[in-house]
């Protein structure tokens, strides 16, 4: 009896703690979202109230659409993220396959060389990266960002994918070789489809940091036509600091795409984080 009551108390305490922390985690997002739909007056008078018929207003969103080119920023972020992920996955999987499948001189050293970048942040090399992008004329192009994010994502991608590729059965590959398939065909037709879950893990790990990065867009591609959504909202908010409606709406518009992505990929992301792929 005492035990049962103790258990129930325990469960209540656990839920209590989790609910409190969940509220702390979600509260700021909630406040920004509800206030973005309110008139300036009610933002200040009743910051915690939900928008109702009287206080509802889209004035902030109108300013955002008129003054900022958010559609272009969104498109830039999309291109950069998708292209970087494509190259990280393609090049990373190819290199991982070479390291996992073949024995050759320098295999271990190559693996270590590619793993160096897992711990060393690419930002340290920013001065020389900018110099290189200026010299090659890539500065203020989306290619500069795509190249940097590809290089940044490759080390962990190679590391995770080669772990998974070692688990693909040798018999399968050897059977394919007997059937006369080339090494390229084995990689693209046989191995790649088998490691698809690991590829998804790598993709979600890289997606969020690339989408959210402020440093490289600020330094390598600050021009109006190459601004990413993160940089675009930073600059927009900086200019409209006193226009609370506009700031709140811009923030909400920056939150929305990430939230949508999260809802779509959260299962994949959490599975990746908890599968021990990072260990």
């Amino acid at each position, binding site marked *: 009896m005492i035990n049962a009551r103790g258990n129930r108390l325990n469960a209540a305490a656990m839920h209590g703690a989790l609910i409190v922390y969940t509220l702390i985690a979600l509260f700021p997002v909630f406040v920004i979202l509800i206030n973005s739909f309110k008139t300036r007056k009610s933002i200040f008078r009743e*910051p915690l109230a939900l928008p109702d018929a009287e206080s509802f207003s889209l004035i902030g969103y109108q300013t955002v659409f008129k003054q900022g080119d958010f559609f272009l920023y969104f498109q830039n972020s999309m291109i950069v993220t998708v292209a970087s992920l494509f190259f990280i996955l393609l090049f990373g999987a190819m290199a991982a396959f070479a390291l996992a499948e073949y024995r050759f001189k320098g295999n271990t050293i190559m693996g270590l060389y590619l793993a160096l970048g897992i711990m060393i942040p690419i930002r340290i090399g920013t001065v*020389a990266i900018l110099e290189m992008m200026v010299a090659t004329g890539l500065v203020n192009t989306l290619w500069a960002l795509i190249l940097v994010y*590809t290089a940044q994502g490759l080390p962990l991608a190679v590391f995770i994918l080669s772990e998974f590729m070692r688990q693909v059965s040798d018999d399968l590959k050897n059977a394919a070789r007997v059937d006369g398939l080339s090494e390229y065909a084995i990689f693209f037709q046989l191995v790649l489809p088998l490691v698809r879950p690991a590829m998804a893990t790598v993709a979600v790990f890289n997606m969020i940091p690339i989408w*959210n990065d402020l440093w490289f867009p600020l330094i390598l591609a600050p021009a109006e036509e190459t601004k990413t959504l993160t940089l675009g909202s930073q600059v927009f908010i900086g200019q409209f600091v006193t226009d609370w409606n506009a700031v709140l709406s811009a923030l909400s518009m920056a939150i929305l795409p990430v939230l949508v992505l999260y809802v779509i990929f959260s299962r994949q992301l959490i599975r990746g984080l908890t599968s021990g792929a990072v260990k």
Partner: protein
Amino acid sequence: MPPIRWHIVVFLAPAVLVYSAVMIFPLFNTLRLALYSEVDQTRIFVGMENFRTLFFDPIWSTQFWNALGNNLWFFVIHMLVQNPIGVALAAVLSHPRLRFAALYRSAIFIPTILSFVIVGFAWKLILSPIWGIAPTMLDAVGLKFLFAPWLGKEEYALTTLALISVWQFVGIPMMLIYAALLSIPEEILEAGEVDGITGTSAFWKIKLPLILPSIGIISILTFVGNFNAFDLIYAAQGALAGPDFSTDILGTFMYRTFFGFQLQLGDPHMGSAIAGGMFAIILIGVCIYLFGIQTRMRRYQL
């Protein structure tokens, strides 16, 4: 000599080329640039001169040590607040009969996916004395006297920003520790139960020692992330890391130096020198982890 297996070269080449050209080469090139300086628009070799300026020239060294000290405090707060909260949340979440665990987990992870720009501005608005959300809420629980414009006060701003960053990233230690806790074999916990070790004492005596390697990984990830941080400070306080440089960390210091701000021109060579300093700090941290902590921790692993 065996024939070259060209397919290996083809498989490796794209990754190795991009990685070497965009990451490794610029890294070393930056370290090399730190040894140069620009005089009359020509680049000349000056050896360790930039580092001497950085460490011993009064104007530079005050800024450098200020940024390093702030960065260290930023890291300490993460270690003392973020990681224990993360472990605690994971411990509760991993309870076998807890309902809605997946829901809590996804919700608590949401701040981690938001960009620094969103997080920085959202908190700036919430803590703003003009808007008054924070004072009103403190008033509701009778603690209004505690309120201060935290981000605007030199003595609180850095700690406030560190706590905002903790709020944002607590999801990562939570997830990693959660995974580690789930991987503890049931038999070990049952064996403990037979000996009368249950509940909280099971956590301290059995689970915690077993998840130490994961805590080690989280510590080094936190270390590298913190000493390379920039975005949150820049988004919330600008490149000047105000008030009066009290929130300046190595990332913002490097950005200002190499890119320039207001009237000061950018100096890529001094910027490289700061990058060299950051590189050394991160390298030392990673080495301490790899050789000092990780090898010793293996013993506890299952």
